[in-house]
């Protein structure tokens, strides 16, 4: 098992390096002088010179990248052009908020997604099955931000109107109380939930065809036990993989959801930074999110190998 972990870690390393190189290099896409882009238009000539020195623009690009990574690993990702506060600090404050949102969404989407998927698989081609799959497809097609806006209208305007309430049922934006979490979680989870339902259904259907299911039934096992102990547990493996990948996608979807609901996480930091042309933050935020994504995938791979020993020797 340890050998497998080490192997996977080593494989993930080039990907991380490649991705970080892409993020590092992309700043050169900005028209004009990258030092100016990273320093901000209002910067003093001294500060621009400082930035330029740190970038080392006259050195070969690989050395520049080495410098950049060296700095990042020491915690120096530059300073926000807008607030002057170190990028790492800005990210540190906001990342936990996004993780909170993403985690709860993951739990919600998994619980409901798996439940719907299992029920659909046990009643294939029924009204429930067909209906839920259509809904799932709709859920995947819906733009997250549009769903968010619709939820806002529903909970903050329509519901109070219908019931004659003095104020919104749920606060439309912001954070601070658990009520602020509800709508963003629904919006973020919807997409995942739909995907999870479809994936679970597909996996379960395959598993339920297997011989050992028929044997269990023939042995007279309770249907519920058959489905859960024999069926779901075996289907769980691919479902878990998807779960892990979902977390990464949730991180990406958080960008849109946080913008709609003004949730003060790293996604909104990124979007605001883009609007302000705060390139150090854009670079830092993308790097952090991408790294998180790679690490999550790595973790899921290892988990998968742990659950299914056959994988370790593949």
């Amino acid at each position, binding site marked *: 098992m340890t050998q497998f972990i080490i192997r996977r870690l080593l494989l993930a390393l080039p990907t991380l390096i*490649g991705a970080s190189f892409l993020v590092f290099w992309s700043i050169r896409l900005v028209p004009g002088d990258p030092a100016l882009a990273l320093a901000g238009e209002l910067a003093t000539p001294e500060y621009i010179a400082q930035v330029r020195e740190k970038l080392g623009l006259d050195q070969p690009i690989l050395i520049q990248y080495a410098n950049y990574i060296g700095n990042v690993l020491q915690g120096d990702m530059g300073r926000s052009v807008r607030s002057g506060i170190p990028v790492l600090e800005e990210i540190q404050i906001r990342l936990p908020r996004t993780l909170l949102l993403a985690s709860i969404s993951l739990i919600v989407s998994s619980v409901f997604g798996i439940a719907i998927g299992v029920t659909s698989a046990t009643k294939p081609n029924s009204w429930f099955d067909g209906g839920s799959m259509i809904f799932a497809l*709709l859920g995947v097609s819906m*733009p997250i931000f549009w769903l968010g806006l619709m939820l806002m209208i529903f909970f903050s305007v329509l519901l109070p109107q219908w019931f004659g309430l003095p104020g919104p049922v749920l606060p439309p934006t912001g954070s601070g109380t658990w009520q602020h979490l509800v709508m963003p979680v629904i919006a973020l989870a919807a997409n995942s939930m739909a995907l999870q339902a479809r994936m679970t259904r597909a996996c379960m259907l395959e598993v339920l065809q297997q011989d050992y299911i028929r044997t269990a039934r023939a042995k007279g096992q309770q249907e519920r036990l058959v489905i859960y102990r024999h069926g779901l547990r075996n289907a769980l493996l691919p479902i878990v993989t998807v779960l892990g990948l979902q977390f990464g996608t949730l991180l*990406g979807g958080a960008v849109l959801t946080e913008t709609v609901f003004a949730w003060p996480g790293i996604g909104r930091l990124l979007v605001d930074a883009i609007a302000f042309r705060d390139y150090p933050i854009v670079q830092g935020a993308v790097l952090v999110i991408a790294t998180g994504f790679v690490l999550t995938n790595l973790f899921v791979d290892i988990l998968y190998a742990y659950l299914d020993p056959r994988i370790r020797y593949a």
Partner: protein
Amino acid sequence: MATLTRTTKKLYDRPVQRSRTYTWLKRLLRKPTAIVGLLIVLAFLVIALTAPWISPHNYDLADFTNARRGPSAVYPLGNDELGRDMLSRLFHGARISLTLGLTSVAIGLLIGVPLGILSGYFGGTLNLLIMSAVDIMLAFPSILLAIMLVAFLGPSLQNAMLAIGILSIPVYTRLVRSSTLTTKEELFIEAARALGASHLTILWRHILPNVLAPVIVQSTLQMAVAIQAAAALGFLGLGAPPDVPEWGNMLQKGRTYIFSAPHIVLYPGLATMLVVFGFSLLGDGLRDVLDPRLNRD
């Protein structure tokens, strides 16, 4: 010897394609979900292509006495914040979405498919290089890469198309590579090699047609992805300039009036959802028809 090669070549040149398409279509039309998807996609295409002629009003005409009015007899879907007709803007937005989708998918196709074929066929270092690049691109969750590219390049329709196109490349590469790997093992490939066919001939004549099926399926699904991504970029203000009636743009501008004039936000989102839904249904149906054993990556 020459006669032998020509005869053998003729055997391979049998036009198999045409009858295969016919069978696909027939099987496709037997699935109700696929029919719905096909209808939606066709409607979308028709609207996008005929938008200038079927729009009831000039989509760009601002009449601010009508600003933010809800649906009425003259303006069936209401007016936006400048008093422009929402329905006409939606129609023209379809054009933009179509262009965006087609261009991005084309970029992904034209670069991803050859890369995938080369990677799968030749293997070795080339494969390693290409797949490493693919892995790097896939290290970024969903549209984050597109957001970053457009943020640095500067928001514009072209940059959005480019960024989404780049996003599509790894999808195609991976898909085509696995198809190529499977096809490579087939007997007729060995036979062609034995007959002295060059790599290029094999790639063009034998491998390519066989990876076509999954590529078609993926392209349909990729259209859905591209249109959704375009709307997301537009919503974040990273797409076309604001006066362009792109659906994501319209959602972004309508946000301010979400509580007083929700129709500005309702319809573009609904349209996006429907179109994405349609392409997804069609893609699913095509996949079931073309190769039920096809595994999604």
